[in-house]
């Protein structure tokens, strides 16, 4: 059985099944390496159905000790699956979507994701 966890010299490595966790292991066979700096965390995600022509719309997520990156895309209900980007900004606990003019872009399912990355 492979040793999948290594904690040595201030470095933590977790390997994929079948591979020993060690510093010489190529990155492709690791689940995590503290030398990477980031690991693709998803702090929160969800979907909201926003009606037509909002001015601002706020999405709350668990407060973080930093301001993370967030992404919001809209699948408008008017044109099937067409995807639009959505303007807005992010704080450490909220995504605030700005005004979108025109009913085509404004309505529909808004998929939002907050990533564990500092801005």
């Amino acid at each position, binding site marked *: 059985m492979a040793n999948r966890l290594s904690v040595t010299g*201030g470095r933590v490595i977790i390997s994929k099944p079948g591979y020993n966790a060690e510093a010489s292991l190529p990155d492709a066979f690791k689940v*995590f390496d*503290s*030398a990477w700096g980031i*690991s*693709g965390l998803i702090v929160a995600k969800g979907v909201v159905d926003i009606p037509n022509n909002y001015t601002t719309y706020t999405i709350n997520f668990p407060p973080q000790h930093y301001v993370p990156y967030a992404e919001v895309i809209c699948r408008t209900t008017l044109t*099937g699956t067409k995807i639009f980007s959505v303007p807005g900004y992010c704080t450490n606990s909220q995504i605030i979507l700005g005004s979108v003019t025109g009913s085509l872009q404004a309505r529909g399912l808004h998929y939002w*994701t907050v990533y*564990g990355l500092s801005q």
Partner: protein
Amino acid sequence: MTNRLRIGHLFGQPGVYISQPGDDVNNPTQALALDTRYETMDIHHYGRRRYNKEVISSINTTFYTSFGAEQFPALGYEPMFMFTTIRLASGNWASYPLGIYNPGPGFTQNFEFEIRGNAIWTTFDMLGTSTPDYDFVYVIFRNRLV
């Protein structure tokens, strides 16, 4: 030396926490490198597909549509995804997010993207009199979309 590993309580919850290099895990200022309170992004499939250019005679009219399906191993649910287009001209500009902003002729005007079972379906609509070649680049994650 900075403490970077903590196994136990942090932020009021038990877990494994690893901070970024140079950031104290007991009082972090940056996003953590590992935080077991949250799920991690896990890549399932990725690819790159070429959309060859088309030329038509009308000006400033949506004229270009290319429809294609990319197959990937089915997951049984709608997964998270990321995508972009790379315009194979003028320095190979990437275009993301797509659709709401039209910076000029020849750029992606609208882009339709849908995951149906084990396939990604895409449609481009372009604006202008001619288009360059485009590459569609995508990543499918094992994580559920929502």
